[in-house]
């Protein structure tokens, strides 16, 4: 493609190509930031570098991680899903109401909630794909609808005390050395692994990247653009419902005001993880690091004790800005290199 690729340093071509990919470069910055922040935390605060602190990052942000994986796919196609937080809230309320007030077994309720989330996502996907509506407006309406539906099911917070649910919530999977993971965190890691395989190793994943690169070209190549777009929003809806389920394990309650503004955290995590907002470039594993960086900010503020909670919002905003500017810089440079070659 460019002069450097054809030079004798072909063995280093992989690394070079990776460095020229704006997504990969951004991911490298994110991983470096994570390591640097951890080191800074270790220097500043006692007991910061214990393994359990890092496992707690996964435990406390399991639902965010699950949602962010779904969001990664949506953003990879160049779309956006603002309804995720509301779908989580709806899932928690419906699940809690079915289990507590209608005597359903949690597993049956979970199955229904997952099906509803997927169906809701697919419906929004159809609106986006079939009627050429802008994703942000459609999912904004979806956000209203899911939040409203959640308050219609119940205005009050519903505590869950079903024996099965409590048992799963208290389950701790020991990893040796006195540290452990919750069921929700394991679920989240499974979702990340599945997402990574789905994105890189399947037809569906390749089509998602192709649509993000150029929808027209993807369609001209004969790829199933329409069905893939619908599937992507369905996947995001499924991930949101699954995150709602893991939220009930984490909080043991269903409430229509759960996960307020979570869509912004999810978008921030995806962007910080190196996925380019215009679509077509990014990694599911990057999203994992994006979520970890967000969690680390919160942990550092908790460890510090003197900083107030609103600094979290400001810090996330600043990081979001920095990574957006970084992406512009990298993609502009990549475009410039492509043009001169």
């Amino acid at each position, binding site marked *: 493609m460019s002069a450097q690729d054809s030079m004798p340093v072909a063995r280093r071509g992989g690394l070079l190509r990776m460095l020229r990919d704006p997504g990969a470069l951004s991911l490298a910055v994110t991983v470096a930031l994570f390591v640097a922040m951890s080191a800074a935390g270790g220097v500043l605060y006692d007991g910061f570098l214990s393994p359990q602190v890092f496992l707690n990052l996964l435990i406390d942000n399991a639902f965010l991680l699950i949602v962010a994986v779904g969001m990664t796919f949506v953003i990879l196609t160049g779309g956006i899903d603002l309804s995720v937080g509301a779908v989580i809230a709806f899932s928690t309320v419906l699940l809690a109401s079915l289990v507590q007030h209608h005597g359903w077994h949690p597993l049956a309720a979970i199955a229904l909630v997952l099906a509803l989330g997927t169906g809701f996502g697919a419906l929004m996907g159809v*609106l986006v794909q079939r009627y050429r*509506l802008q994703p942000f407006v459609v999912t904004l309406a979806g*956000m209203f609808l899911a939040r409203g539906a959640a308050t219609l099911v119940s205005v009050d917070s519903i505590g869950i005390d079903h024996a099965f649910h409590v048992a799963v919530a208290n389950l701790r999977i020991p990893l040796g050395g006195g540290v452990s993971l919750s069921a929700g965190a394991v679920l989240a890691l499974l979702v990340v692994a599945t997402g990574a395989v789905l994105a890189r190793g399947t037809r569906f994943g390749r089509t998602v990247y192709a649509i993000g690169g150029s929808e027209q070209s993807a369609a001209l190549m004969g790829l199933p653009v329409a069905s893939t777009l619908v599937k992507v929003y369905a996947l995001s809806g499924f991930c949101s419902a699954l995150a709602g389920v893991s939220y009930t394990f984490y909080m043991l309650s269903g409430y229509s005001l759960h996960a307020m503004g979570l869509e912004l955290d999810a978008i921030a995590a995806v962007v910080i993880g190196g996925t380019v907002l215009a679509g077509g470039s990014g990694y599911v594993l990057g999203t994992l690091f994006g979520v970890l960086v967000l969690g680390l900010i919160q942990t550092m503020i908790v460890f510090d004790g003197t900083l107030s909670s609103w600094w979290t919002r400001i810090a996330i*905003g600043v990081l979001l800005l920095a990574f957006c500017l970084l992406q512009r810089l990298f993609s502009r440079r990549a475009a410039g290199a492509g043009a001169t070659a």
Partner: protein
Amino acid sequence: MDANDTTTSPAHAAAPSPTPPPARLSLWKRVLAHPLFWPLLALGLLLLGNGVLNPGFLSLEWRDGRLYGNLVDIGNRAAPLVLVSLGMTLVIAVRGLDISVGAVLAIAAMVAAWTIGRATAGGGDGLMPLWLAVVAALGVSALCGLWNGLLVVKAGMQPIIATLILMVAGRGVAQLIGDGQILTIYYAPYSFIGSGFLLGLPFSLFLVVVVFVGLKVLLERTALGLFVRAIGHNPVAAHVAGVRARAITLALYVFCSFTAGLAGLLVSSNVASADANNAGQLLELDAILAVALGGTALAGGRFSLAGSLLGALIIQTLTTTIYAIGVPPQVNLVVKALLVAAVLLLQSPEFRGQMRALVTRPASGGRA
């Protein structure tokens, strides 16, 4: 549809006086095709429905030199949303979007409350603290708009992401100003902005009228309105044609945040306090809904300020209605969501095409 009937059915064409029906039809068509017809019809039906359900709803009463009634109340409550919708209309008209208006409203409210707290504690008397608060709040919100505009115009970010940054960080900044507390305002003159009366009408209505008429004059008596439409239809072509697209876009973002600042003054003055977390919550969504209801194309280019004004009034009337008829207020969100979906589908050419095919296919099949 109507035109089809007159041209295809010979029975109508053979009517004794062929000229009057087309004239009446064309007038009817013109009314139907008027961009403000549907929003006006929706608002009229909503108000009429309320009047039927509750006969006292539409009545106005003159008491103690002031006008009282549900209609005045709706206008007063809708004022912040109307202001923000006007700003949002222009940003959307140039293919932009500003989802930070709720956060900017909170910042402006906090700045005003903080300034008044400082000025009155320092022994400032008379109207000085009021002017200080207004200038500070509007200045800060204009700066917020400049920030958004620079990110969009200079850094080349997508508008939704550029304003997302301020939306996320803005609430944090607002809390920082109030140190995490709700600031209460103990200063009588300030309450005039949000709940004062002038000539028997709420002061906020005058503010809305001034902004609306000012915009109308600016956009229709100068070439600015044309420029805005040109940028919205095709930014590159507008730039090539010599329209200063970037400067105008930047100015519109500043103006949008400015209207959010004005709304922040109204809201904080009305409740005599500023709440960084809850002031202007979901305002961005309501504003976008109002703009869409008013017939502005969300893809840019075609916009209607009067439509957005009507859209904001529809939303407020809907809220008042839902409270008045005793339905749980949570239904409000669901109704709004379904409204957005319906309006979006009606705006989509693909959907209209499908519906037209659905309507005409059985009809033509029956004829053949």
